[in-house]
């Protein structure tokens, strides 16, 4: 088996995921959901896992947090080190202490992630009291501080509000406040702005970028939106069919895309390459089924750059530039073909 144990090294990483593979086993069916996923998150860094539905970005996050069902989901290789401690070898009891304390999480839909029958103040203090031995009053004070931190206007009066009394954007701020209440080392944000309108999305993304600057938190931002990645991420990992196909600094990947899939994504974006009414460059076909191991490049059947060699077992990821790694054999051809792409030109 060929794997990608190697990935761009990060000095003193908060999280270091190495060669992570995962299968979902049903009675008679196995799905190879993650295949040798490797990446690191540095101190105060915003990294983005980007890809389309079903590519494994959320499963990666769920595995790291130990939230997948014990039966059914099976980690077949790899480690996920949080400051050197392997989360995959940690007991559920211990993980419960780590989640919400050392790792904060926010999800796509803030309405369904909040408890509708408790006030937001109560929900934030509950998180704090779960992890810290503090009095009710102290927890409430901290909850108020957190609401201020996420810029909820008139925070004191909002402590007593129920989730349904808040707008979608405010609810997502409450989720962020709750996730950060215990000063986590790492925030995992899974499509945090997908359910929000663009203007509210812009505010929430600004908030995440500001918090990184002010309190130096590390963030894994999971998104399908290249625009969001371009706006806030320092580094990005492009995922397809359970593998990281390309990763590197955001500017590098946009200026010098070196994988057929990344190129395909960038080309299919409407509006940017806009001459009105032009045909968009579509990626033909659809995502492969993962019920068998794919030895060669997973994207090859849909890739316009692919050739015979792509179907053979893949070589190690190649480093194209400092910290920029790709698993594409035709990386140079992709780069060249993309040189007149509007997005590439804008970053170059």
């Amino acid at each position: 088996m060929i794997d990608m144990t190697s990935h761009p090294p990060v000095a003193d990483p908060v999280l270091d995921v190495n060669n992570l593979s995962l299968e979902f086993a049903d009675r008679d069916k196995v799905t190879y959901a993650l295949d040798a996923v490797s990446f690191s998150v540095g101190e105060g860094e915003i990294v983005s896992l980007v890809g389309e539905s079903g590519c494994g970005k959320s499963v990666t996050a769920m595995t790291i947090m130990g939230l997948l069902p014990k039966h059914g989901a099976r980690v077949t290789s790899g480690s996920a080190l949080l400051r050197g401690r392997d989360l995959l070898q940690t007991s559920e009891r211990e993980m419960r202490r780590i989640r919400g304390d050392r790792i904060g999480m926010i999800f796509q839909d803030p309405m369904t992630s909040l408890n509708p029958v408790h006030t937001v103040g109560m929900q934030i203090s509950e998180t704090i009291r779960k992890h810290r031995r503090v009095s009710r009053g102290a927890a409430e004070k901290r909850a108020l501080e957190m609401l201020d931190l996420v810029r909820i206007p008139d925070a004191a009066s909002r402590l007593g509000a129920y989730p349904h009394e808040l707008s979608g954007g405010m609810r997502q701020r409450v989720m962020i406040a709750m996730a950060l209440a215990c000063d986590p080392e790492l925030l995992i944000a899974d499509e945090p702005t997908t359910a929000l309108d663009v203007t509210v999305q812009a505010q929430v993304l600004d908030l995440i970028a500001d918090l990184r600057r002010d309190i130096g938190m590390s963030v894994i931002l999971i998104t399908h939106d290249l625009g969001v990645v371009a706006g806030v991420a320092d580094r990005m990992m492009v995922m397809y069919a359970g593998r990281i196909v390309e990763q590197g600094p955001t500017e590098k990947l946009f200026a010098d895309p070196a994988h057929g899939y990344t190129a395909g994504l960038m080309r299919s974006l409407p509006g940017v390459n806009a001459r009105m009414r032009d045909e968009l460059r579509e990626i033909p076909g659809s995502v492969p089924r993962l019920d068998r191991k794919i030895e060669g490049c997973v994207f090859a059947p849909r890739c316009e750059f692919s050739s015979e060699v792509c179907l053979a077992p893949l070589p190690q990821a190649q480093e194209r530039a400092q910290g920029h790694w790709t698993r594409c054999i035709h990386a140079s051809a992709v780069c060249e073909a993309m040189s007149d792409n509007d997005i590439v030109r804008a970053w170059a």
Partner: protein
Amino acid sequence: MTGYLVLENVGKTYTLKPSKIGGGVRHVHAVDGVNLEVARGETLGLVGESGCGKSTLAKLIMHLEAPTGGRVVIDGVDHSRLRGPALKQARRNFQMIFQDPQASLNPRMKARAIIGEILGNYGKASSQRVDELAALVGLSDFHLDRYPHQLSGGQCQRIGIARAIALNPGLIIADEPVSALDVSIQAQILNLIGRLREQLDLTLVFISHDLSVVSHVADRVAVMYLGRIVEIGRTESLFRNPRHPYTRMLLEAVPKPTPAKRHARAAVSGELPSPIDPPSGCHFRTRCAFAGDDCASKVPELRPVDSPHMVACHKAETIASSLNMNVA
């Protein structure tokens, strides 16, 4: 210009039950005095944030809701006068494509039956026509013999489109047709809609919150805010030179895969006010940096600034001279 679709001062007011703890009857003006004309074969993009009334407007055009004011005329016919069988026959001419392709298909019917059903409703059941439609939207026999849950989102949306064009309508309302799809699939569906529009000479109202998608498909774009159209113009003109401060805000807020504005803070302030009790005068004034006294007292009318580009803003000229923005 006599439009294929004409909206004359169309309004829809919903009345809310009075609260048990007092207070009078309250109203939501979901759509408020909308005037629109869409020419035959034209594509109008309708954009705005959730709650701005774009879907209510779609329902009014589709005659799924009756307007509380004004008229909707499609191809010269005001359907509010029609009832029963006459209305059913008229409905053939205007069809809809929905956002969630999976949810809008009957899970217990195979694709073939779903497309066939609408033909059967009009006594036109024909397996030959079903095959023809499937070919038009790029589905094969393999797909036709499957249930919606066995198909991907993109394939389901193709079924939705086949159903919408089955009766040769003149007008199609597409309400967020690609919002639930991944980008690579989104491109396939947008191209399909574009091709069909040419082939079948369709008039299209394309509703979306995604401005880049709209900029790609629409000939003209209308921007809605709290039930009113605040700006309308040719796509290029509106995107290159937005005249309403709300349109500017929307365009700035769109995350772009280009580095240009990376560290520029999006000039977004505040949130959408409640549509139950919207601000007086210009609804946008509470979030607008340029708002003055007259914005609170007078409702701005849509007026031409650069014909056919129209804007409903008292301060359009002042803003244009104080800013020089180029978003497109």
